[in-house]
């Protein structure tokens, strides 16, 4: 064996070692801790983190809300959306969701809020919590239909709400306190409407419409109405969690139950393992020693792929697992191309060493071209596709790139290490 081959072999072994321990760091970390405790060394440990699973595999819900920005001034939409995002994030956190993801999405026609709640069991309740948030609004009285017109004053400017009881009637009432900006708006509004009524609407329903006696500079208002104590309490709680600055509408939902997610994960993994084993068996049966080497490199390939999924990290979805499994089938293509070429060269009388070198040399254009088409399509799928397509494209691309490395570097190194050995001479071993 040449020095260069030795070096390559060491690189392959180190890579395999690192990949394997990144995927399953438990044992090596126990070892490292042991060594660290017995010596003065402080060796770094492998990061211990689980695979990141998509909503379809761990269960959870993906919600798309359409924001109604018709009442927001031009140019202030972005700010309103930010406010909406913050409020909903607070609400979701109150609900106790781990790692929620809330994003603003702007399309050509409208703005949306994407809400991802992993692992939520009571989806219905969660949605109610988000969507049923009271939309608080003050309206001015006018002479003709519809009698009340919306003003700028909405729940956006609310500092806090408080439950209170009327001193004389003992009726439940809600005290609203505005922030500094809201205070100004409320002052102007009341100054403008002395002697007229100002209506308080919640979710488009008229709650109360008191008559303004004088301008109110304090920034405090009270809602008295036909509340029971329970209703008033709920209103206060909801208003405090944050009144939505703009109304929203749920336009799409994708929910997967946690048990279903787990079953999907188990099934797809099982399919992956069976497929993988079939490929290994086939390669060994057909290409003998070369097949064993290819299988070994496929195992390393799988290790590197999984390690990358963990470390990057790639969020694994059903589509992603599909892509990864498919890439195993495709990964073998490079090996098949190379082994077939080697066979041909040997048939024409080339020695083992020459057949290896020529086999790789001749197979390279086909490997490159073949993988390139799939990569091009995957790149387009990733750039322009929807989330399912993206998840598939990511793992497929990773798979293809690593498969090329595995075929061109790992398998070649393995084959080269047989040059000059006795095994090289035994013809039937090489298929």
């Amino acid at each position, binding site marked *: 064996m040449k020095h260069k081959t030795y070096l390559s072999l060491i690189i392959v072994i180190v890579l395999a070692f690192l990949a394997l321990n990144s995927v399953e760091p438990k044992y090596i970390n126990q070892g490292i801790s042991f060594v660290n405790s017995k010596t003065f060394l402080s060796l770094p440990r492998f990061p211990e983190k689980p695979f990141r699973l998509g909503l379809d595999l761990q269960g959870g819900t993906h919600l798309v809300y*359409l924001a109604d920005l018709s009442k927001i001034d031009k140019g202030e939409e972005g700010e309103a959306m930010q406010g909406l995002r913050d409020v909903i994030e607070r609400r979701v956190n109150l609900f106790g969701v781990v790692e929620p993801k809330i994003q603003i999405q702007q399309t050509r026609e409208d703005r949306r809020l994407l809400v991802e709640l992993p692992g939520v069991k009571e989806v219905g309740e969660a949605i109610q919590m988000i969507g049923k948030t009271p939309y608080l609004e003050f309206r001015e009285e006018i002479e003709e239909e519809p009698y009340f017109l919306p003003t700028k004053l909405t729940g956006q400017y609310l500092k806090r709400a408080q439950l209170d009881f009327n001193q004389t009637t003992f009726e439940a009432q809600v005290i609203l306190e505005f922030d500094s900006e809201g205070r100004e708006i409320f002052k102007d509004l009341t100054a403008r409407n002395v002697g007229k009524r100002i209506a308080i609407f919640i979710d488009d329903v008229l709650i109360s419409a008191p008559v303004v006696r004088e301008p109110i500079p304090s920034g405090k208002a009270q809602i008295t109405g036909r509340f029971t104590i329970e209703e008033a309490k709920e209103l206060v709680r909801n208003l405090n969690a944050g009144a939505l600055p703009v109304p929203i509408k749920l336009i799409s939902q994708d929910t997967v139950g946690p048990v279903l997610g787990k079953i999907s994960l188990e099934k797809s993994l099982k*399919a992956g393992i069976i497929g993988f084993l079939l490929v290994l068996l086939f390669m060994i049966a057909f290409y003998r020693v070369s097949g064993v080497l290819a299988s070994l490199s496929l195992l390393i390939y799988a290790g590197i792929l999984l390690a990358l999924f963990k470390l990057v990290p790639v969020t694994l979805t059903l589509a992603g697992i599909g892509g990864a499994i498919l890439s195993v089938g495709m990964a073998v293509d490079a090996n*098949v191309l190379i082994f077939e070429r080697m066979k041909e060269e040997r048939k024409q009388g080339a020695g083992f060493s020459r057949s290896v070198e020529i086999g790789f040399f001749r197979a390279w254009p086909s490997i490159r*071209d073949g993988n390139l088409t799939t990569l091009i*399509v995957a790149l387009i799928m990733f750039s322009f596709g929807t989330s399912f397509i993206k998840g598939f494209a990511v793992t497929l691309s990773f798979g293809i790139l690593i498969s090329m490395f595995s075929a061109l570097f790992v398998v070649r190194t393995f084959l080269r290490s047989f040059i000059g050995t006795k095994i090289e001479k035994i013809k039937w071993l090489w298929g």
Partner: protein
Amino acid sequence: MYIPFIKHRRIFYIISITLVGLSVVSIFVFGLNLGIDFTGGSMLSLTYQNQVPSSLEIRESLKELELGEVVVQPLGEKGVLLRMRDISEETHQKILEELGKLGEVEEGSESFQSIGPVIGRELTQKTKIVISLALLAILLYIAFSFRRISRPVKSYVYGLTSLLALFHDVLIPLGIFAILGRFYGIEITIPIITAFLTIFGYSINDSVVVFDRVRENLLRLREPTFDLTVEKSLNQSLTRSLNTSLTTLFVLFAIFLFGGETLKYFSLALILGIGLGTYSSLFLATPLLVSFLRFKERRYRKES
């Protein structure tokens, strides 16, 4: 083993033309059964612990909710799948309640997807863009990849035949899905579109590898005729083509049989596309090169 691809090429053409013809007819007659990803609507599935209520019972119990048309399908052993128009979260909860009255529902087994018309339109739009771009990229790739071979067949002919093979590989599975959609209610969903996009890449890949062989042999072997070069190249590529698609088919069959509902028809589309891709690169695209050359020569002789 030596297969006389060129001699029998007409038989292969006839098989392919027939299959493509039938597929186009079935696409036109049956149409494509598009899923809620594109049309908008709702899909709800859950698993019962013991007895699964019949679809009649389910439809009866949901009657009061006035959902319009509700399609009820069995899902696996104890599951049911309901399809209906796009519904609100409130209605969703009411349906769950009704379904819970019919039997013990496995906790955490439900899935619900509701896609409003806006999102449906958007997904359709996006999918169209991805498909067009993928086709465009493939075209550019072919033009680039075959720019240097010109003798005796011009480089654009390689591009054209691989493109023909691509249509063959996509149209036939699409035809099969039209039939499956009409008779078994299987829908064209985003996973299936993903599979078709992958077939684009794979089909071209398959043709390119065989063509690469032809290109190499044209330079190296100096066979007396183009026919012989092509046939030799095909026979040399045969084992590789079969083995590669076999390994890919192994993993796909594993997904089809064991991988669960979402990936089932995704893998079926890929199985069809990859099987056909291998067939077409060997029996259709490459022999077509010879036919093109013959056609050219005949015309040339007539003219002179």
